[in-house]
């Protein structure tokens, strides 16, 4: 008996939706194996990872907090991928958004202006958009692929932040720790629940879900983007600009990532530090694909990924597992998603008897 992959006549709608769930289950099982190999009871470890964070109200608000940057970044990435523009440098755009928004907070925070926070958000989005506009320019003028340029610019952004917090923006009263002053209260996002860290940034991220859905499925711009992504020759024939799609989707996703950055700075972090994100911008790539590039799917996927971050912290605290355990499960999630996605276009066939020549 042999196993063989056979092309389906039509892509399977069932697998299209089932695949992310299968991937999540397989990643959990794979995680269990890893925990067992590390000498822990896999059931306890998995419960710590996936269930413990959901048991308390505090855990749920933390879930929303962690989902916020993931959701914002992933929605931008997904809009880009639908147009076949691959922004994998959301991490850098997020970092730049934190710098520009944080710069406003440091300059005007505490002076009591009503416009400080709105200006910070705008500056954060503009900073991320600017950082993503560089790859857009390189792509449209010099045909340099955005996969490389967005990724490389991420590291540049992190170096810029490092230079700022070690040098010009360092807190003079901070015992030479590489970080800025804490933001003043009027430069902080309002919290949604007394005593929790969940803030208004979560609402902004939730707002992005219907807006992105409407953009993609109910506007001419979104239709043009999808056409450029799906069939470039058809887009040329229709007269939809491929360069326009590159600019639009990179600037949009950069702005969303930048917004995520300033929300981190003006939210849970409250200042600028050398690292503003534990890889939210990169994890968001997984979130975008796990959510099937659909805004509603991405919302669910961002919550799952946020759970992994939270559960990972719990594992560190209670089982003394390294933070790499979280990364391992994230990686397995993407790996299993790619594997189960194979079955969207193909199916497994059992054949009896010897192979034909």
């Amino acid at each position, binding site marked *: 008996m042999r196993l063989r992959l056979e092309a389906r*006549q*039509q892509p399977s709608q069932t697998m299209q939706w089932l695949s992310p769930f299968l991937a999540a289950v397989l990643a959990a099982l794979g995680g269990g194996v890893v925990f067992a190999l590390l000498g822990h009871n896999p059931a306890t470890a998995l419960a710590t990872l996936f269930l413990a964070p959901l048991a308390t109200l505090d855990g749920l608000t933390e879930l929303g907090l962690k989902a916020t940057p993931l959701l914002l970044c992933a929605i931008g990435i997904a809009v880009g991928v639908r147009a076949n523009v691959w922004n994998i440098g959301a991490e850098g755009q997020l970092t730049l958004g934190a710098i520009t928004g944080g710069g406003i907070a440091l300059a005007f925070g505490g002076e009591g202006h009503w416009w400080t926070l709105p200006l910070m958000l705008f500056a954060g989005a503009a900073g991320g958009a600017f950082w993503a506009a560089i790859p857009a320019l390189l792509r449209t003028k010099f045909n340099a692929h955005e996969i490389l340029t967005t990724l490389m610019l991420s590291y540049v952004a992190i170096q810029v932040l490092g230079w700022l917090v070690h040098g010009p923006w360092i807190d003079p009263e901070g015992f030479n720790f590489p970080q800025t002053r804490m933001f003043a209260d009027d430069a902080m996002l309002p919290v949604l629940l007394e005593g929790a860290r969940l803030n208004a940034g979560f609402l902004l991220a939730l707002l992005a879900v219907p807006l992105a859905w409407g953009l993609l*499925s*109910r*506007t*001419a*711009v979104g*239709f*043009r983007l*999808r*056409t450029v992504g*799906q*069939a470039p*020759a*058809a887009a*040329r*024939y*229709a*007269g*939809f*600009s491929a360069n326009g799609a590159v600019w639009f989707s990179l600037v949009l996703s950069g702005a969303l990532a930048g917004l995520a950055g300033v929300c981190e700075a003006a939210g849970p972090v409250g200042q600028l530090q050398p690292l503003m994100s534990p890889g939210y911008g990169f994890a968001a790539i997984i979130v975008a694909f796990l959510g099937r590039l659909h805004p509603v799917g991405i919302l669910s996927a961002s919550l799952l990924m946020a759970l992994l971050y939270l559960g990972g912290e719990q594992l560190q605290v209670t089982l003394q597992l390294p933070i790499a355990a979280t990364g391992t499960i994230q990686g397995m999630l993407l790996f299993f998603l790619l594997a189960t996605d194979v079955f969207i276009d193909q199916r497994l066939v059992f054949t009896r008897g010897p192979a*034909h*020549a």
Partner: protein
Amino acid sequence: MTARLALVGITKRYGAMLANNDVTLSVAPGEIHALLGENGAGKSTLMKIVYGVVKPDAGVIAWEGEPVVIADPNAARALGVGMVFQHFSLFETLTVAENIALGLGSTQPMAELAAEIRQVAAQYGLAVEAERHVHSLSVGERQRVEILRCLLQRPKLLILDEPTSVLTPQEADGLFVMLRRLAAEGCSVLYISHKLEEIRALCTAATVLRAGQVVARCDPRLETAESLAEMMMGGALTHTSRPPAQVGAPCLAVTALTLAADEPFGTTLRDISLELRAGEILGVAGVAGNGQKELLAALSGERRAAAGAVLLQGQPIGALGPAERRARGLAFIPEERLGRGAVAEFTLAENAMLTRLDARTAPHGLLDLGAVNALAARLVARFGVRCSGILAQGRSLSGGNMQKFIVGREIDAQPKVLLAAHPTWGVDIGAALAIRQALLDLAAAGAGVLVVSEDLDELLEIADRIAVLSGGRLSAPMPVGETSVEGIGLLMGGAAHAPAA
């Protein structure tokens, strides 16, 4: 006499569709046997079964009286089956001899092979130079390379799939001479074509397929083109009717357009001038690869030229893009359907928007799904598109129905000028008829229609004037009444670039 190839009860099922249903067919040695049928009738599947690409679900293949299993194309070639596909598989950067060596898997020294190529080429009157690089060959020459590659294996059965669609009439005549010589030597030929006149001229037997089944066997020499078409369609043939048209003012004018090729092995357009008048159909004939793609791109706006080089109703549009030209009344039916004229993954409703995003379907940039769906439903109803509904994916439609949808979408836009590239290529007879009629009606309603086609019969049927594109140059158009197939054929071969009087 034992049949060279006998197929008995061949059945092949793809999911719910029976591609071949109990097909029985027999080819005698030295016979030129036509396989006729509309698109989707099962001709290609049957030939793939004979060539070992596809395995039948049931049925027997007998080769010279012996039942055989043809597991793969190597086994088919070992038996003596050669096949010339519609789309060539040649490496453009290699020479003719190198391509043939690759195809044969031959280890013999190149000089020896080249000598053999020359000898076989001379034997069958195939003008091919073994040392030439394939990219420098015309389409007709490339086909000769493909045929030569088969002949070097001394086939007993040669299968040709639509071989004349890329040839000038003179080249086609040359091919027929070669095939008759081959048949006289005892080689059988299976000939797939939808050009009924050439089947009547060439073939001595015919098997007609419809919906996967054999519906008729006949001697095409004793039939008329009309009776053959009726066998294929299973019904009486209707004709296009040409409504009287008033030829009016020029609606599209091209003046001295020169445009360098934008890709390797592309064609440079040289000094092209043409004038299309309202109410007329101008046919552009020519063998593929002589600048058709480039001319259409320059007219549709996918490639820009000097503003004044292209005038639409007197307004310079040469520097505008496709969407801007469309807004000014230019519509375009492209050569490729899925991927260009329509998106395979989009629904028909979305595909309707592709060229019809305007104030009605997308006021203020927001899609009006009601208006979009109404448009798609209107196109489906008005042009008889067979589909499961306007939410059917583009890929689920047959080629002919997708083309009817695209043609309908462009005509429904009520353009002042319509460009149509190979509008009925690969479309079954019924749909082709409907498409030609739609083009005639549009012209009668006062639009100018420019049709680029390799199908000379089609151009002679619907065009008022015909010009020939050859080597990137366009001949002066001639009224159809004053042209002959021979005259156009000579121009297609590049015989005369001098403008006709």
